[in-house]
Structure formats: C-alpha cells, structure tokens
C-alpha cells in the first residue's frame, strides 16, 4: 500500500468508526426517548386510573349515602314488622 493509499484507508476507517459511534448514539437516544415516553404513558395511565378509581369511589359513596337515607332508624323493628303470610 502506498503512503497516500494508507492515509486514505486510515481516513476511511475513522469515518467508519465515527459512523458507528453516531449510529450507537442515535440508538441510545432512541431508547432513552422510548423509555421516557413509556414512563410518561405509565404515569398518565396511573393518573387516569387513580382519577377513575377516585370517581368510582365517589359514585359509590353517593349511592351509599342515598341508600343510607332510605333505611329506617330501627332495622330490627323494620325486619320484625315485615311479617308476611306464607304464599305459593
């Protein structure tokens, strides 16, 4: 290999090395971005789930509050008075 050919070969090697490093950097960036996106999505889902759960709890509480208002003050007396004749 001539001197000039050797120089060109070395330059090509450096370019290839640079190219590999760049590709690795891009891949790392991509993975980091993907991980950040997944984490953000997880946080959003957890937050939505928490909001949904809170809303469901609130709905249940409202339902139960209303049911409570329908009950008698003396359940024992209510149940005893609910005496029926036997039917079919």
């Amino acid at each position, binding site marked *: 290999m001539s001197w000039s050919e050797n120089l060109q070969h070395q330059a090509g090697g450096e370019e290839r090395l640079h190219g590999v490093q760049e590709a690795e950097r891009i891949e790392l960036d991509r993975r980091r971005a993907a991980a950040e996106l997944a984490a953000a999505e997880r946080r959003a889902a957890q937050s939505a789930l928490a909001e949904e759960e809170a809303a469901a709890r609130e*709905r*249940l509480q*409202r*339902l*139960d509050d*209303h*049911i409570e208002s*329908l*009950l*008698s003050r003396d*359940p*024992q007396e*209510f*149940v*005893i*008075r*609910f*005496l*029926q*004749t*036997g*039917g*079919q």
Partner: protein
Amino acid sequence: MAVSPVCGLETEYGLIVDAGAGCSQEATALALLRHCPVAARVPWDSGAEAPGRDARDDPHAMAAGAEAAAPGCDAGYLLGNGARLYVDCGHPEYSTPECAEPVALVRADRAGELVLERCRRELNRFLPVDQVVRLIKNNVDYQGHSYACHENYLVDAGFYRGLFGGPAPLLSQLVPFLVSRIVVCGAGKVGSDNGRTAPTFQISQRADFFEELLGLQTTSRRPIVNTRDEPHCDPARFRRLHVIIGDSNMAQVSTYLKVGTLQLLLAMLEEGASLPDLTLADPLAALPAISHDPTCRQRVELSDGRRLSAVEIQLAFADAAQRFAGRGGAPSWAGEVIERWGTVLHKLADEPRQLASTLDWVIKLDLVDRWRQRKRLAWSAAELREIDIRYHDIDREAGIFYHLESAGAVDRITAEDAILRAVEDPPSATRAAVRSGLLRGAGGRVIAGSWGALLRREDGGPPRRLELADPTLGPPATAGTAEPRR
C-alpha cells in the same frame, strides 16, 4: 307437534305499612286492589279454574292438592294489557300476559311492577301521611315464610304427557338444570331459612324452602317439579308447564335468562333433542348446597359419581343449546339468549363479582358486603336484612334496586319507555293482544274475563262467552308472528 313458545310470570308481592301497627297484610292487599287506577279492566272470571288437577293423574295427589290450594282472597281483574291483578294468600299478585319471547316477558314483568306501584300510590293518598304502604318484590320475610314467582310455559299436550309420564319422564332431565340455574337467576339473600345452617349470604331466596322432588302443592313442602295441570287453553292441543322453583327478580338480565334458557331447553326437548345426562344424586340436598356458596365453587354429586359445580352443569346445558341452535330451527331470539348465558357463566366460573351490575344475587352481595365492611357489621345484623328487603321495594324513589338502576349501576335488557307502553298495551303476538283488543274495543260490553275466555254482554240476551283457546294466536295483523319451533 311443536308449539310456538309462549310464557308468563306470576309474582306475589310482600307488603309493609310504615308506622302502620295493626294494619293487616290481607286487608292492605285487598285495599290495594280496590285502588287499582287502571281504567281498562274487568272482573276476573275464575269459574273455570282447577288448580287441584295433577299432571300424573294421581287421585291421591289431586285430593291433597285440592286441600292445599288456598282459597283465593280476591280473583281481581283482567287488565287492558292482558294481565291479571289479584290477591292470593294475602299477597297482591300480578300475572303477566302471555309473551312469545323473553324480552317481551321482561317488559311485561316490569310493567307489572308499575301497575302495582300505581295502586300503591293511589292507596297511599287515602292513608295518614306517616302510614305509607310499601310493596316488596321478594320471596321471604326472614321469619320462615315464602311466597312465589311462578313461571308458565306453553307446551304441546302430547309433549306434556311425556314430561311427566312413562318410565323415563322427560322432566327428570330438567331437574339438574332447575337446581343449578339459581347461580344465574337467584335473587340473593342474607342468611337462611327453614332450619338450615345460617350462611352469611346465599344465592337464592327460595332454595331453603324446597323439600320434595315432585308434587302438586305450592304452599308447603314445596316440590322442585310442580305437577299442577291447569292448561288455561285447549287441553287437547296445549298444556301449561308450571314452574315454582324461581326467585322474584329485579334485574332485567336475571329475568331474561331465567325465562329464555328454560324456554330454549323446552324447545329442544320438544324437538326431540337430548339434554346432557347430569342426573343429581340428591337434588334436594344439592339445591341449598349450591345456594349457600356465593363463590360458585361448591361441587355436587351426580348419580354417575361425578362431582360438578352448578356453573359446570349450566355450561353443559348451554353447550347443548348452542349445538341445537347451530343446527337451525331454534327461535330467532335463541342466539342472544345463548350468548348472554355463556358470557354470564364464564364470568361466574372466573370471578362472580364481575357480574355486580348484571345478576340480582351478585348486585345484592356486592352491596351488602360493602355495607357490612364499611359499618363493621356482623352478617346477622338487622341492617343488612333491611337492605336486602328494601332492594326489592318497587317504589322508584325508595327502592334500592331502582336507585342503582337509575344511577346506571345495573344492566338493562329493555328501555323504560317500552316498559311504560307495556302497562297499557299487551304483547303483540299472542292471544293476550286479542283479549286486550276485545276488552278495550267492546265499548264496555265485556263484563268479565280470564286467560281463556271473555264474557260479553249481548243486547237482549244472556252474556256470550268468547273462547280464546289458542294462546299462540295473536290478532289478525300479527297472526303468524309468534314463531313456531321448527
């Protein structure tokens, strides 16, 4: 000969008067009837009724049945929508008109609640403000008494004889189905009855009250299979299968599956299809055992030694129904029934609480269990029983089930406007529409009526009896719309 599927429900309601010490149940039930605000109605003609006749032609059973049959407190009315409203054994009772498919029956059943609710409101107008009548669509009073929700299915007369007669009665094939179906259509109950060991919560209201396998009686020693043979139609062509092992349902899906699945199995048997052989070793012991286990894991013994859960038994019947429908010839509504049935069964097998917006017993269990934990109550607490009773209160403003339904917390099969129409209008494709049309269109000439006949006043002569012997025959405009089972 296979006949068109026609079915109906008859439901006895419990009642209580708030602050009404001294108000008798019987007198209140009769007062409710007297305050029925439905304009289109005539007195019920009970002259042709014979509830003491036994399908097995057993004279001894017939005599016992005749003794057991309680005198009707009041025969009540035939209503303009083709239904009957009356008082039986001290309970207000509503019998739906004949329906050709399960969605129509869900509407008719719910329309019955509305009719009784209107009676209740009318009567309450005349009572002191603190004495409010409440109507409870349940089956137990927690003091040892039960009252019913009976189902009626029209079948061919020859097929009916095969159900009860011969060395291998077809009805025996249905016993494991009737016993296990409580996991689908039980109404749920806190505690137990009839001397059974007290479970915390059980699947069925009525399971503790069945003490015989076969019998004519309905008010004591209740049988899993009732043999009452009272067709209310042309007995040479049709019979009515009377099923007394069922709870009163609030949830539309429970009612829909209760009736749709049995109608489908009867269609299969009538067409000669065979049901899976799942004969139970001891049906009377299996019924409470299944009912007392809300996890649906309890296995019961079959006569061939296998042990299956109620869900597994139901799945075997559902698979057979699917194969039958796949071969063609099933009613058009069968596919939807099978699909819902399968979905419900798979959820029951997986985790029953997934059905906390679908089936009565799971809706109720979810509610009372939450309440119990929140308030730190024992399962024996009266408050839980009160919730259980008030779940079935048909007052749209005070009933717990209706509160859940109006909040969108339970599934529906049919819309409220269709139910409201069913208060006035009969189902279209059965003789109920003919009965209704004659009653409403006769300008007051119809003076009494029953399932199978109307009495019409004629000018200058005795009343004329108009026979309605064919329950499958709708008015001319809808004739033929009730589907034959082939």
